[in-house]
């Protein structure tokens, strides 16, 4: 019996034993058609979904290769039915093609009359189709290209989109690689994207997604619309583009709540695009303002639903999605795939960390015992108040201070979700607080001071979850969060993962109240981090701080 590294499960998950000598080879073989779901220390979990199989087909892999990879690396015999099912699923892709017909414009063509017949009769799809040209071809309303693909995916007959892209208005852009080079994985990501036309690149925070975007622009050499989560992140894009490409300040416009500039390269925030007045989106014109050759979506996993709808209309333009995680809390991964494009590149965090491009991180959960009074308050609180009471407990304060004292020379971030707690911390730790109401100017000033080392500690609210660039933050302490959100965890961890000048280790602390909802949510986050492959350590506040510093001895409970 072959002793392969792979175990195929009934639910079409694949377990890959990492320490197996063949694991690298196997990973390469299964990566095209299986999504990496979890990558904890010993056994990684991949999942084979129809979406992933169709992506593999789109990338030119056929069912035979997939089946061969499974059979070759599998430790145990693979059920025949599963292989048949995989082949059947893959066979569904490409029966339908979207193409440009010189006479009729956009058409949907099928090699299989029965499939076309089924599709034409589908209630969901029919309204998007026009006249039937012949038995195999039907006209598609050009404006429905995106929605049609979405609908076809939902009914299980994904269409191959061969209708191509418009080039957009040409604009010279090149990378200014003076003293730096695109890293291998970044180059692979750009190549993967460009070959596929449109799609999503998944890279961990700190791995240089902005550069992937810049390189894609240099490849397109056309006017580009960049959609980002907020203004700060937009300015950071602008700074990066000026530094790394031939673009100048004048060529880059900012389209935000404050400014409405439209230039060859325009950076717009999600928020301004989705602003509605009297029920109408007021800034839709932006999409038509230029003949865009490329649209870049930063942080695709946060893309708001209205933008999906808008994106459906932009199918003739190249689209690049950038994200650290495809996990969407709203479960709309399908839409990301059908409207922006399939995943074109993916690398596990640990691999990039191993290459030294992102800082190795140590994740530590510090457990704090609440004092009697807090426990009583917690016990009698309304359910909806409980998390806040646990997360903002006073007992955390000395522990946070003690944690910060452990790293006197590092740049430190204290991250929380509750403003009064942050203000309190700001006072207690004598550190500035950045929150939603802080002006952009003030933010920029504080970030600058932090970058230069003038300020050692910053207290930030969840506004800092996204896209702020703090290259020298080596320590993050999270004190409260959004109910164990995995996405938030990925973002916060990203804050400390950017490589340190001296290659120091990053530290990621979570201060948690023992035996409360807080620790329950912490368990979610812990699982997420462990699944990402991070070693996760739990420390008692007492062990961290030394006895006597945490108030009250009653946390030495009976029994472990």
């Amino acid at each position, binding site marked *: 019996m072959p002793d392969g590294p792979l175990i195929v499960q*009934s639910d079409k998950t694949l377990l890959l034993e990492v320490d197996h000598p063949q694991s690298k080879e196997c990973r390469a073989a299964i990566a095209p058609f299986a999504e990496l779901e979890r990558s904890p220390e010993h056994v990684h979990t991949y999942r084979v979904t129809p979406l992933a199989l169709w992506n593999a087909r789109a990338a030119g892999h056929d069912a035979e290769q997939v089946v061969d990879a499974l059979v070759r690396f599998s*430790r145990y015999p*693979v059920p025949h039915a599963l292989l048949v099912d995989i082949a059947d699923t893959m066979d569904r892709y490409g029966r339908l093609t979207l193409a440009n017909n010189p006479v009729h414009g956009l058409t949907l063509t099928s090699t299989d009359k029965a499939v076309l017949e089924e599709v034409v009769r589908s209630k969901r799809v029919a309204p998007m189709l026009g006249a039937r040209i012949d038995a195999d071809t039907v006209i598609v309303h050009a404006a429905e290209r995106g929605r049609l693909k979405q609908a076809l995916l939902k009914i299980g007959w994904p269409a191959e989109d061969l209708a191509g892209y418009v080039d957009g208005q040409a604009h010279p852009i090149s990378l200014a690689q003076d003293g730096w080079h695109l890293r291998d994985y970044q180059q692979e990501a750009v190549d993967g994207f460009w070959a596929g036309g449109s799609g999503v690149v998944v890279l961990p925070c700190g791995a240089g997604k902005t550069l992937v975007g810049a390189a894609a622009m240099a490849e397109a050499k056309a006017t580009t619309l960049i959609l980002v989560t907020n203004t700060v992140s937009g300015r950071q894009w602008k700074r990066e583009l000026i530094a790394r490409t031939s673009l100048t300040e004048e060529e880059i416009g900012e389209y935000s709540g404050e400014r409405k500039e439209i230039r060859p390269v325009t950076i717009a925030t999600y928020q301004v695009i989705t602003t509605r007045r009297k029920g109408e989106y007021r800034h839709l014109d932006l999409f038509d303002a230029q003949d865009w050759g490329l649209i870049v979506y930063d942080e695709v996993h946060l893309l708001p639903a209205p933008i999906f709808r808008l994106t459906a209309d932009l199918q003739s333009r190249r689209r690049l999605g950038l994200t650290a995680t495809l996990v969407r809390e709203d479960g709309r991964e399908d839409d990301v795939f059908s409207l922006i494009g399939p995943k074109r590149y993916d690398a596990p965090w640990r691999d990039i960390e191993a290459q030294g491009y992102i800082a190795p991180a140590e994740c530590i959960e510090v457990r704090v015992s609440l004092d009697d009074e807090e426990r009583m308050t917690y016990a009698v609180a309304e359910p909806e108040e409980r998390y806040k009471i646990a997360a903002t407990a006073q007992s955390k304060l000395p522990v946070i201070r003690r944690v910060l004292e452990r790293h006197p020379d590092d740049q430190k971030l204290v991250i929380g979700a509750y403003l009064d707690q942050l203000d309190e911390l700001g006072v207690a730790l004598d550190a500035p607080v950045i929150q939603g109401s802080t002006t952009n100017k003030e933010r920029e000033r504080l970030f600058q001071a932090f970058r230069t080392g003038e300020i050692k500690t910053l207290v930030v609210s969840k506004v800092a979850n996204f896209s702020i660039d703090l290259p020298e933050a080596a320590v993050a302490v999270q004190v409260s969060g959004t109910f164990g959100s995995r996405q938030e965890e990925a973002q916060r961890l990203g804050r400390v993962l950017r490589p340190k000048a001296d290659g120091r280790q990053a530290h990621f602390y979570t201060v948690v109240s023992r035996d409360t909802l807080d620790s329950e949510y912490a368990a979610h986050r812990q699982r997420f981090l462990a699944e990402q492959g991070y070693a*996760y350590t739990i420390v008692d506040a007492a062990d961290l701080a030394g006895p006597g510093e945490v108030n009250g001895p009653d946390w030495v409970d009976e*029994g472990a």
Partner: protein
Amino acid sequence: MPADQPATLAAWLRTRTDEQLGALLVARPDVARPAPSDVVGLATRLAVPVSVDRALDELDATTLQVLDAVLLSPTDGVPRAELPGLLPDVPAEVVAAGVETLTTRALLWGDDELHAPEPVRRAVRYPAGLGRRATDLRVPLPRDLPATLAELAPDERTVLDRLAGDRPVGHLPDSAAGSLTPARRLLQAGLLARIDAINVELPREIGLVLRGDQPLGPPRLRPEPEVTRRDPSVVDQQAAGSALEVLSRVTDVLTALEEEPAGLLRSGGLGVRDAKRLAKELKVGERDIAFLVEVAYAAGLLDVGGAQRDEWLPTRGYDAWREQDLTDRWAVLAAGWLTSPRLISLVGERDVAGKAVNVLSPDVVRQTAPALRRSALAVLAEFGPGEGLAAGELVQLLRWRTPRRADRLSPVPDLLAEAERLGIAAGGVLGSGGRGLLADGEDGAADGMRGLLPAPVDHVLAQPDLSLIAPGPLLADLAGTLAVVADVESSGGATVYRVSEASIRRALDSGWSASDLHDFFTRASRTPVPQALDYLVDDVARQHGRLRVGAIECYVRSDDHGLVSQVLSDRRTANAELRRLAPGVLVSGLGADEVLTVLRAAGYAPAGESSGGAVLTRPKAPARAAGRRPGSPAAAGPRPLRPEDVAATVREVRAGDAALAARRAEPVRQIPGVTTASTLELLSRAVSEGLPVWLGYVDAQGSGSQRVVQPVSLSGGFLQGFDEGRGETRTFAVHRITSVALVGPQDAPAPS
């Protein structure tokens, strides 16, 4: 007819050797039980219509065509040597083999000249797909048949050609007012016979003319299906993969039912809601659940149980099964499926009332199912290793093999799919396990599969995300323990367990201590136990048991704590088994009534209390016993005939025959109501040779009579014949016949 040729079937049977008689019993086992008393009895049994039908059902199309050739021949006996001439397109050796098969089964008899027994003639309703004779259908044929046929309109000719094909009977289409359909015109022309309100039949003569030089229709030779060829080792691998899958899935289903049994429906099945629940728990479709549950039931791992016998529960057999190694476990499932009389593919189908058939419902029992499975797989087994048939080809071959059962073949594609899910076959090709199963049942299956399934592992890999991965099938006791301390997240080749707060709590509830758990994880995991796991165990253990719950029957309470203390320390109340739970509260494991009685006897004045605190008088309800419902007994097929049974039966027949021969000389008399074998033998001989007989007969009114009858047929306990005295065709009940004698040319009938 040469003088040395036996004149009747019974006489011919007498000339057969013991081996040949044995072969007959083996081929038609239904006539062997109970053992016939003599050869005449055997011949009678062989004439029973059900038995004839059963024997014909097992014949392939070529053999049936050979039979048709004999049946269609204008004379009763067909010389063996002439038979190949009647079937020019069939190779002579195939014809000879067909004759051999037919004579072995006594469906044809005679050595030089082949005769078809009357019951066989009747059982083959449309020999070679031809209708009855025109005279039997009472249709006067046109004088010049070929000419009449040549003049027919094309549409009429089409109708006739169709009826001259496989089936001479057709529906008469509804005719629109005024116009005559071709079929109706043919009916008027007397070329078709109306047999009932809507059906017409084509007379044999017309069919034969239409068929021209192929009176028996095209030769029905064995089809040469397209054989699937695959690497036997790949087939075995894939079959083993499916086997592994079905094993883990069946275990999952049974584990789920162990935790929460499914209810027994009044109609006998497993409810839709339970099926849905299982589907959700296992993350598979409901059809998959139906299959897995049925397989578990067929293997005896699941049955009706519980205190009220109203739940589907894993059986004791399941406990033993779990301890077996994978190969043996698989063999139990495969053998259970093969012999199960339940057609799983019917589950979920709508019945006549439009209601979907439930899982485990008694409605899907088809006694023919095991034979169908076996015959389908046996066809595959005839091919060499690595060779097999796709479902369509298999059905085609089976249709040739058992044409009279063609209507029962519809489940075959589903059965093949089930066999593939079970790992008996893969892609239409039998695996080694499947071959073993067919050859030697459960043991054979295990031998065939041995070495293909992975060896069990004795460890798991603990990961920091609190998952435990068993990289292969686990040893039974380890799997049992893990089922307590963790939840299964995905199964298949490996099992992914997840440890959660709930699962740790469950372990603590079932008596584990925190240190037991630590020890277990350290022992079971090949990787170092992650710190998070240790913390989780300790966290949950710390919270565990802070609240205590116990069962008591009643309490004694009073605001007067002193009184309570007094009661507790009173010796006379010792029988009330009171203990103090809190100040002012005593509890007892005895019922409230008993405690009240004890306290009253001790001189206290207690009062009963309702749950709301109100004072009660005696609360007591009459007792009732829980009802029982009998479970559906497992259906058992007939016991197969063993070689020694066959030999014994042949001996018995021979002995009975010798005894009979001693009495044969005297004319047969019969006491009314007792049908002796010799009466029947005489009658059947008279029927086959067309000899008139004297009959002593008592009619339904009880009046006796003597008559001379020209017998026509004998079947189902009735003799049909032309009563010469009354000049009409009549039917005589055999049990009312009091005496029979041949009307010989030489001896005058002696009425008795």
